């Protein structure tokens, strides 16, 4: 699965994206799985309220959303377009 990071999350993780094998079945579990892997994820996901998620390029509100068949999951802060 491809995981993407944008804005200050990208800066904290150090890469714009990574290809990973994940065991998690939901967005919430994926975050926990990443945090357990490396301290940099713990720092990046520290303020979880300020993190937005898109699964296959669709914004999701609920961290219980399944990622079983997802091709990509993206993490980023609130958008500041326009």
């Amino acid at each position, binding site marked *: 699965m491809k995981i*993407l990071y*944008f*804005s*200050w999350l*990208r800066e904290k993780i150090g890469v714009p994206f990574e290809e990973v094998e994940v065991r998690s079945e939901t967005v919430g579990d994926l975050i926990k799985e990443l945090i357990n892997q490396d301290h940099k994820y713990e720092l990046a996901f520290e303020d979880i309220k300020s993190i937005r998620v*898109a699964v296959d*390029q669709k*914004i999701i509100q609920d961290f219980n959303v399944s990622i079983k068949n997802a091709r990509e999951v*993206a993490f*980023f*802060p*609130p*958008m*500041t*377009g*326009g």
Partner: protein
Amino acid sequence: MHQTIKKCYISVNVQKVDFDINSEIKKIKSNKIIGGIANFTGVVRNSGREKEELVSLELEHYPGMTEKAIMLICEDAQKRWNLNFIKVIHRVGRLFAGDNIVLVLTASAHRKEAFKSAEFIMDFLKSRAPIWKKEHYRTHSSWVQSKEEDELILNDW
């Protein structure tokens, strides 16, 4: 990315290069039904949050998703109002004070529909287009924080 729904032509571009308002309007005016064109141009400015002068504004985005997210906003506008044309151009990359950031252009037979739809699209671009802005100053840089009011305002629509 572009499509036509119910005779409303929608065009979305995410690009590094600048746009030209005159030529965008010229494209629209070939259609004789329109009576009014509302248009909003967002421009890079010193936010006033810092005492230093802004050196540049960097716009990062989610390639692929950005176009889709903006298209969804336009389709929503097209369902709410009677429009002939919707054009959105959002620039990304590194921009400087006074540079154009975004163009929203809507055309309708009636002025109110053109105005409302352009305002609606701008409001949703603020917090629904996967774009993030970073302000660069001479001595430091900082990511632009989203404003709570920009999110709250969406409930008014």
